[in-house]
C-alpha cells in the first residue's frame, strides 16, 4: 500500500530525514517511535504534504502512485489522513461545515456526487458516537476553545468520517489523560480493517497498549535504526532510548 524509499527531506537547509525506508501493507499498523528531534513528526508531515519541508531525495509510492508531487488535498483524496499533533483552531468555521466541505470536495475529486444534508448528518452522527463526540462540539467553531482531549478526539472523529486508507497519527496521545486516550484508541481500533493501514507516531509506549501495532520502528537522527515486533515498544519503555543511541553510535 505504502512504500517509502530512501526518503530525504530538509527544512531551512537542515536535513531532517536522511533516507527513510518503510513498507506498509494493507491491514497493518506500524508504530514509529524515537527520541525527541529524531524526525518522527517531520516524516508524518512530509507524507501529508506540508510545504515547509523540502524533499531532497527518494520517493513515496501510495497505491501505485508517486505522491510527493501531489498537493495535500490530492493526497487526502487518495486516502491519506494525518491526525495533527497540534490541531489548528479555526474561528468562524464550524466543525460540521468544515467536514461537509471536506467530504464533498473529496467526493468531487473522485467523481462522486455530493452528499445531501440528510445523508451527511446521518453519517456524521454515527461517526460521532464512535469517538463519544458531543453534538455541541460539532456546531462550534473548529477546535476553537476545545480542550486538548477534545481536539484529539475531533481528529479521530474526522478520520472516522473521511475513512482514509492510510491514517497517520502524529503523537495523538500527547496531552491526553488515560480516559481520553482510551476513547481515542477505541476510535482508531474501530476503523481497523484488512484494507486499511495506520502509522502511529508516538514518543511513549502507553498508546500502544491500546492500539497494538504489528511493527515497531525506531527513528533516530533521521533514519529508521531498528525495527521489530510489538514487544520492541515495551523494551523501549523499560530501557529508554539510550541503548539504541549507543548501538547506533557504535556502528557509525
Amino acid at each position, binding site marked *: 500500500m505504502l512504500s517509502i524509499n530512501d526518503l530525504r527531506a530538509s527544512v531551512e537547509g537542515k536535513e531532517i530525514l536522511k533516507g527513510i525506508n518503510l513498507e506498509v501493507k494493507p491491514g497493518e499498523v506500524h508504530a514509529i517511535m524515537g527520541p525527541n528531534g529524531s524526525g518522527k513528526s517531520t516524516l508524518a508531515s512530509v507524507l*501529508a*504534504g*506540508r*510545504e515547509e519541508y523540502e524533499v531532497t531525495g527518494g520517493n513515496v509510492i501510495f497505491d501505485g502512485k508517486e505522491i510527493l508531487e501531489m*498537493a*495535500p*488535498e490530492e*493526497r*487526502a*483524496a487518495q486516502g491519506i*489522513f*494525518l491526525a*495533527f499533533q497540534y*490541531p*489548528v483552531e*479555526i*474561528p*468562524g*468555521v464550524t466543525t460540521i461545515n*468544515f*467536514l461537509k*466541505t*471536506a*467530504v464533498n*470536495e*473529496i467526493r468531487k*475529486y473522485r467523481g462522486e456526487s455530493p452528499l445531501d444534508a440528510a445523508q451527511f448528518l446521518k453519517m456524521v452522527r454515527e461517526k460521532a458516537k464512535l469517538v463519544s463526540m458531543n453534538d455541541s462540539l460539532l456546531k462550534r*467553531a473548529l477546535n476553537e476553545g476545545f480542550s486538548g482531549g477534545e481536539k484529539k478526539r475531533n481528529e479521530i472523529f*474526522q478520520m472516522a468520517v*473521511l475513512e482514509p486508507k492510510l491514517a497517520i497519527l502524529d503523537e495523538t496521545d500527547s496531552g491526553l489523560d488515560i480516559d481520553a486516550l482510551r476513547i481515542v484508541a477505541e476510535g482508531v481500533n474501530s476503523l481497523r480493517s484488512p484494507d486499511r493501514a495506520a502509522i502511529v507516531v508516538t514518543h511513549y509506549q502507553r498508546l500502544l497498549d491500546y492500539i497494538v501495532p504489528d511493527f515497531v520502528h525506531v527513528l533516530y537522527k533521521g533514519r529508521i535504526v531498528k525495527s521489530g515486533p510489538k514487544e520492541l515498544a515495551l523494551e523501549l519503555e523499560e530501557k529508554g532510548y539510550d541503548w539504541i543511541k549507543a548501538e547506533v553510535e557504535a556502528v557509525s
Partner: protein
Amino acid sequence: MSTETIDLKTRLITDFHARESVMNGEASSEFHQKKRAALAEFDRLGFPTIRHEEWKYSNVKDLISASYNFGAEGSVGFAELEDLKIPEQDANIVYFVNGHYSAELSRFVSSQTEITISSLSEAYKKTPALVTSYFDELTKGGQDAFTALNTAFAQDGIFIHVPDNQSVTHPVILRFVSDARVQNVGSQPRNIIAVGRNSSLKLAEAFRTLGTERSFTNAVTEIYVGEDANVEYYKVQNESDNAYHIGTTQVRMSDRSHFYAGTVTLNGRFTRNNLNIVLDGERCDAHMYGLYFPDGTQHVDNHTVADHCKPNSESNELYKGILRDRAKGVFNGKIFVRPDAQKTNAFQSCKNIVLSPDATMNTKPQLEIFADDVKCSHGTTTGQIDEEALFYMRSRGISRPEAMALLMYAFCADVVSQIKIDSIREYLEGVIAKKLAS
C-alpha cells in the same frame, strides 16, 4: 472659457445661484438659509486635497475631474432592478433613483402610528417647521466640504420620524439606485432619521448602480437616537466599478440609548464613509462594525468617530477588510473622551487580510482622552492567510482556493453575524461567499 473646463466646484456654485434665483419667497425660509450657509462653507473649504489631514490617503482628484448630471431623471422599472434586489422579507422598501424618490417602486407595510416615512421633499411640504428643526442640526459646522455640499443641494432623501414608545416591527430599507446607463450621474440624497424616546428602529441603506458610466453619490444621513431608544443602521454598498461614493452618517445619542452600525462595502470604484457618533448621553452604547473587500484598483476609506461626551457610556468598534490586487484601504478611527465622560469604555479594532503585495492598507487609530477614569483600547492588524490553517484544511481534502474562501469567510463571520435584518444578512452571506470564491 468653454463649459468643459469650468471645474466642478465653480459649476456647482453657479448652479446653486441659478436655482436660488427662481425660488421666489422660499429663498427666505430658514430651511434655505441653512442651505445657503452650507454653500458658503463649501465655497470656503473647497474639495479636499491630500494635504488635508482627513484626506491624506484618499485622493478625490479623479472624482472631481469629471462632470456629472446631478438629479438626472432615471426611468427604472421593477424588471431592471431584479438583479439588484436583496430578496425581500416584510419590510418597508423605499426606492430612490438618481436621488429622486420613486413612489411607484416603493412600498410601505408599517402603520402610521408606529412610524412616519416619507420623502424629504414631501415631508417638507407638509411639516416644514419639523423638518427644518432636524435638518443640518447634527452636521452643521462639520468642516467637511462634501457634507456642506450635500446640505446646500439637499432636495430629496428620506424623512423618518418614530414617535415615543414605538417599537417598529418591520425594518425600513432604503434603496438608492444610480442609473448610469447613458451618462455620468450624480446624486446627493439627504436622510433624516429621528427616533423618539423608548422606541426602536431597524434601518438599512443599500446602494446599487445600473450601467457602467460614472456615478457619484454624495450621501448624508442624520440620525437622532432618543432616550432609551434602540437603532440599528446598516449601510450596504454594492456599486459598479465606476461608482464614486462619499457618505457621511452623523448620529447623536441620548441617555441610555443603543446604536448599532454595520457598514459593508462590497464593490465600488472609490468609497469614503464617514460615521460620526456623538454619545451625548449617559449610559448609552454605540457599536460599529465594518467590512470591505476592495479588489482591482478600488479604494475604500472608512473614517469613524466615537465622541464620548457624558459619563458611563460605551463604544465598541470592529472593522475588517480583505484586500486584493492593487486595492487600497484606509481606516481612521477616532475616539474622543470629553472631560465629563468619566467611566467611559471604548474599544476599537481593525483587522485586515492583504492578499497581494501590491495592495495597501493604512490604519490610524486616534484616541483623544480628556477624562482620567476611562478604559480605552485599540488594535489593528494587517496580515495574510494563516498558512497552518490552510494546510490543516487541505490535509482534509479541501482544495487551496476553497480553503482560502472558507478562511476568509470565517474572518468576516463575526461582522456579518452582527447584522440583525435577516434578509440583508442572508443576502450578504451569499454575496460574500461568492465574492471570496472568485
